[in-house]
């Protein structure tokens, strides 16, 4: 599937290349008429000569590395390079977008790696890891954005970053210089998504005390019931499917076993500082327990028998085909993964739960304050354009009360739920409290306690309407109504309830930068970890002996050295 996807991307890039000239010429014609209007508009609103949203008098072009996702909602004829957002950008700021490369998932990271190794990077691109960022900085490939940020960032954007108490900007500051635009990352809780229409059909009673939590044995029971009764009438039913990497760095890792591991007190792929002593979560006994749990499910047939070779796309296909009705991911997966299920089956609904540990608490870990970085090529002449784009898409678009009248096309994109990756920067920049703030707006808006216009962001306004549409006609509404309802009224509501009822037990990990030994040994240690874990989970090796051997090897092959280097960093 991965390869199919790759070839599809290749073909679509070819198709893009073919359509590009036509689109761009059309674009410039249509924009010339309205550019004067927007210029007046932005100049009157911003008194400064060169303010946060001042357009360029001469058109400038930015080449981008674009991270794409499956995007069924994009209107016909629109592309990543030419869509409502890029046209808006052209109108308001007189900036043209050209994609140097487009790729999704792992392929994007590969493209970034290749760009880094060839030294030929686009004017701007997203990098996902701190190490990539550090390498770019050390190789002197990216521009210092300190002045651009101080001069051009709008007050609201500055407020957003300040809400993280310097953790977000601090993460991208090297030697006192801001070297990237960080994507912010709010805390989330890993959730289990269960086909509630199936549960209803089978008359199952889940979470009878209504506290939003289920135990691991309840989870097992649900998956077993789904497998035996096969409510989806599918062939080759699978109880639970996981991605080949099993554990993920991010707390909510989609299709990973994180949620189960956390409930067992294990925090794989996490660095924890216990009074100056650093522990790597993957090497703890709790992680072994979690792997044993998966292994026992694998043995009894409850876990996908193709675990390890079933790719990400294959798992999505299992969900879409109704072969499985239990999956793992954070609050927003209805927006971009589970929506595919609803597209195929209009009766499909999901309920989300957290998994509680033996003490009835839900273990979760804080996120890193940043999730990905947008960097500007040092050779690019207009680094401040990056800040202006941020102002436009994360301040103006979120806060403008008149977007719908001024730029109906952009508003329509939001209403239709076209994926946000079509914006030039595929990152999110939100206040640290934004998740629950937005939820409270939406909740009040749906109940009619506030009018939609009182909601803090445009997105919330749209979501209120989506949720209303869904509630009015759950079976017949648009897929976007369905997914916004699920992500907010199921996904975030769960976090809200758990927070309110004090069910969450937060662990604060540390996020060390790459140490000297990590540079040379980490790739091997990571490979060893993933190989061992998948072998234990699939029963290819005995859990106890293989895990203990892994811990021993891990320590001797540089793990111990890395831990002492991280402890050094903390001092």
């Amino acid at each position, binding site marked *: *599937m*991965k*390869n*199919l996807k*790759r*070839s599809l991307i290749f073909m679509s890039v070819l198709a893009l290349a073919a359509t590009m000239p036509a689109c761009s010429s059309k674009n410039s014609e249509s924009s010339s008429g309205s550019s004067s209007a927007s210029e007046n508009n932005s100049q009157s609103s911003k008194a400064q000569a060169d303010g946060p949203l001042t357009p360029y008098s001469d058109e400038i072009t930015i080449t981008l590395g674009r991270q794409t996702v499956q995007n069924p909602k994009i209107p016909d004829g629109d592309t990543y390079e030419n869509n409502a957002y890029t046209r808006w950008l052209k109108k308001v700021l007189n900036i043209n977008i050209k994609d140097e490369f487009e790729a999704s998932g792992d392929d994007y*990271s*590969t493209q970034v*790696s*290749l760009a*880094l*190794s*060839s*030294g030929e990077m686009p004017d701007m691109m997203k990098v996902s890891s701190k190490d990539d960022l550090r*390498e770019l900085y*050390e*190789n*002197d*490939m990216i521009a210092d954005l300190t002045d651009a940020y101080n001069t051009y960032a709008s007050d609201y954007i500055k407020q957003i970053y300040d809400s993280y108490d310097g953790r977000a900007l601090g993460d991208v500051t090297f030697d006192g210089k801001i070297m990237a635009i960080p994507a912010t990352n709010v805390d989330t809780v890993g959730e289990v998504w269960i086909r509630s229409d199936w549960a209803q059909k089978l008359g199952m009673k889940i979470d009878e005390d209504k506290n939003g939590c289920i135990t691991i044995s309840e989870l097992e029971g649900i998956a077993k019931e789904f497998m035996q009764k096969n409510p989806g009438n599918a*062939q*080759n039913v699978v109880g639970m499917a996981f991605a*080949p*990497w099993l554990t993920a760095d991010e707390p909510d890792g989609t299709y990973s076993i994180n949620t189960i591991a956390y409930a067992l007190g294990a925090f794989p792929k996490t660095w924890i500082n216990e009074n100056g002593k650093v522990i790597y979560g993957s090497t703890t006994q709790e992680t072994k327990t979690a792997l044993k749990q998966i292994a026992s499910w694998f043995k009894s047939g409850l876990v996908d*028998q*193709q*675990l*390890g*070779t079933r790719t990400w796309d294959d798992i999505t296909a299992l969900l879409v085909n109704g072969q499985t009705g239990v999956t793992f991911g954070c609050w927003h997966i209805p927006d971009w993964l589970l929506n595919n299920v609803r597209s195929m089956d209009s009766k499909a609904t999901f309920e989300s739960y957290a998994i509680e540990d033996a003490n009835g608490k839900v273990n979760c870990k804080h996120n890193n304050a940043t999730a990905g970085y947008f960097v500007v090529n040092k050779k690019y002449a207009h680094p401040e354009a990056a800040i202006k784009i941020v102002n436009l898409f994360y301040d103006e678009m979120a806060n403008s009360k008149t977007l719908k009248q001024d730029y109906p096309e952009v508003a329509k994109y939001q209403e239709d739920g076209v994926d946000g990756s079509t914006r030039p920067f595929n990152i999110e920049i939100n206040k640290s409290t934004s998740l629950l703030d937005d939820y409270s707006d939406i909740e009040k808006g749906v109940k009619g306690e506030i009018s939609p216009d009182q909601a803090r962001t445009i997105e919330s306004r749209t979501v209120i309407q989506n949720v209303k549409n869904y509630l009015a006609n759950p079976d017949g509404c648009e897929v976007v109504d369905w997914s916004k309802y699920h992500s907010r009224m199921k996904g975030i509501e769960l976090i809200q309830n758990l927070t309110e009822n004090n069910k969450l037990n937060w662990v604060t990990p540390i996020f060390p930068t790459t140490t000297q030994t990590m*540079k*040379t040994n*980490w*790739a*091997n240690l990571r*490979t060893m970890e*993933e*190989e061992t874990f*998948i*072998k234990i989970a*699939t029963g*290819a090796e005995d859990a106890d002996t293989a895990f203990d051997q892994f811990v021993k*090897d891990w320590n001797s*092959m540089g793990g111990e050295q890395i831990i002492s280097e991280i402890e050094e960093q903390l001092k």
Partner: protein
Amino acid sequence: MLKTKKDLTRYSQISYHLMMLPGMFFLILFSYVPMVGIIMAFQDFVPSKGLWGSNFVGLKHFIYMVQLPDIVKVIRNTLIISIGKILLGTFMAIAFSILLNEIRLKFFKKTVQTIVYLPHFLSWVVLAAVVMNMFNLDGPINQFIASIGIPKINFLGNNKTFQPLLISTDVWKEFGYNSIVYLAAITTIDPGLHEAAAIDGASWWKRVWHVTLPGMLPIITLMAAMSLTGILSAGFDQVYNLYSPIVYETGDTLDTYVYRIGLVGRQYSFGSAVGLCRSLVGTILLLTSNWLAKELTDRKIF
């Protein structure tokens, strides 16, 4: 008179040399110029500092390579997979070409040829999807296995089956195309020899053994020696598109290992150190096989 003729010959050869020029140009551009990059193997290469600005570190990366715990496993896998491919692939191609040569019905012969050549022209990116669908737990192969009462096997996720799967699918993809050379070799054998053998009462087997195979021997030697140079590369695109962490133990080869550690992990210098070692081994093997060929069959390749 004689002299002018000689001059003429020399003159007429110049055009042939000119014809070789573009080829030589590309050979130098794409095979010799990149060799400058070998320097990287002895440096801590940093892209922005470039080839001339990076620090020299001597044999650091080679020592690191030898010390890697996985290197033995990776080399073992590479050797098993590539030797398996060479042996089985050569055998299949020779057998196929001998059998195909027996077919007298032209239409049938052409059809068979087209069908077996076809997979060669498909990329592994595409074929891997086909192989995955054929061999996964719900695929036709496993359905057949289940129907005769044997438990299903996750071919792509099992360390026992992964290497045979790699070897057999690669042989399936390439044997048709590789047989072209052998077919050509068979046609050069004097039919008189076959007739003589037949008149002397040699059976079909005997004729294959004593006439066809000895006639093909120079080509077989050449092809085998040439394939030996690639013994340390087990086919990157095939393995990369089919493997997963679960089969690293038997499926991780030098190419995929270097790719993961070197390019994705961006340890350029280490990657080129491994590449250099591989080329050295390839060169040594080529020279050895050339020498062996001369000793054993009295025919040199170059």
